[in-house]
């Protein structure tokens, strides 16, 4: 197995782990974290494809590498916006849950309300 295959399979597992965390973790901040993990796996697959395309004296195809750099910056801006939204939600309602059954006024009366 060469480096591209090893890291490619690792990237596939990272995407799976991120997806699992995104679905099962109820906390929005953990979902953001899991989504970043998922995204890093996708970037890594780009990196593997770039590495396989090594030619003309370059260690990898520079085009996917440049796209990944752009992708990392865009993913960071999206994360920053998501975190700001979450903090505003917390500030406005005193809780940071995604359940629409929980409204600020009755936030601590019924923690096991109907499923959202």
């Amino acid at each position, binding site marked *: *197995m*060469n*480096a*591209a*295959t090893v*890291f*490619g399979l*690792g990237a*596939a*597992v*990272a*995407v*799976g*782990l991120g997806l*699992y*965390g995104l*679905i*099962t973790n109820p*906390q929005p*901040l*953990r979902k953001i*974290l*899991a989504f*970043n*993990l998922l995204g*890093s796996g996708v*970037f890594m*697959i780009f*990196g*593997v*494809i770039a590495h*396989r395309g*090594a*030619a*003309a004296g*370059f260690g*990898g*195809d*520079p*085009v996917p*590498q*440049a*796209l990944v*750099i*752009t992708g*990392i*910056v*865009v993913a*960071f*801006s999206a994360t920053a916006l998501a*975190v700001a939204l*979450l*903090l*505003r939600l*917390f500030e406005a309602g005193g*809780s*940071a*849950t995604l359940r629409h059954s929980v409204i600020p006024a009755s936030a601590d009366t019924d*923690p*096991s309300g109907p499923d959202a």
Partner: protein
Amino acid sequence: MTIAAALEIALAVLVLGVAVWTIAARETFVAVVGFVAYGLLLALVWVRLDAVDVALTEAAIGGGLSGVLLLGAAARLRTTEVRAAAEAPGKILRIGAALLSAMVAAALAAGVLLLPDPAPTLAPAVAANVAATGLGNPVTSVLMAFRAMDTLLEKIVLLLALIGVWSLAPDRVWGGHPGPRHQADPLGVLAYLARLLPPVGIVVGIYIFWTGADQPGGAFQGGTILAAMWLLVIMAGLTDAPPVSRRWLRLVLIAGPAVFLLVGLTGLLMGGAFLAYPVAYAKPLILTIEVAMTLTIAVTLGLLLAGAPERSAGR
């Protein structure tokens, strides 16, 4: 198996181990610490994949800035953790999610194993045209010339994200200082480092930007280091984040995209296409754009981390 292959497998296992930790950890704060370690280890993977430019970006943004952003949010949301535990999904949903995730991972793994051989590549095309940009670093050439439109739009995405963050400010503090006023022991380690590191960090940041023309590095990586230095001084309480309504701040924020657009439109007049650089002036034009972009990136990233305005500008 060679030593290099064994090291690569060990690195992949370590990275995935930290990824599992990030997902499974009970406390969010602990999970974020795992995520920072994950980002730094991932940078090593990028080095092994011969993508040093990406490794620098991943270490700076994936490991560094995202870590600061998420740690800050985790600390502020700590009181919500207990209630969130009661919302954990049932066993059936967990098993379903695990099955779905395993299927997606398996499909991607099959895709990785079945990639075409020989791999399609644009590397020869880049090598043939890299001389026209006057830059020695092929990745910078792609970012600033061959795919300059992507980079221009990405700058605008950064600005849009910042506008989104600012628009979350309550009316009474509109245009005010972002985030809380940080206090730190003036004789403590943080304040000491915030005096010691910035002179070095600023030189390193500018060097990483400048060397990006011919070596791994570039405007993002350099700008991120400059942003980190600014944030360090703010977090140590040595200075305050400026009110977001300041005119100089707004001008710096649009400097990068504005210079980029201006050069692009000039290309439309002189070279016949948007963002076409006249070959004789390609390198000076690209460096001019990058200088403006490095400043804009540093200030935008710093303000994205500082968050929405929380205090009115009057204080």
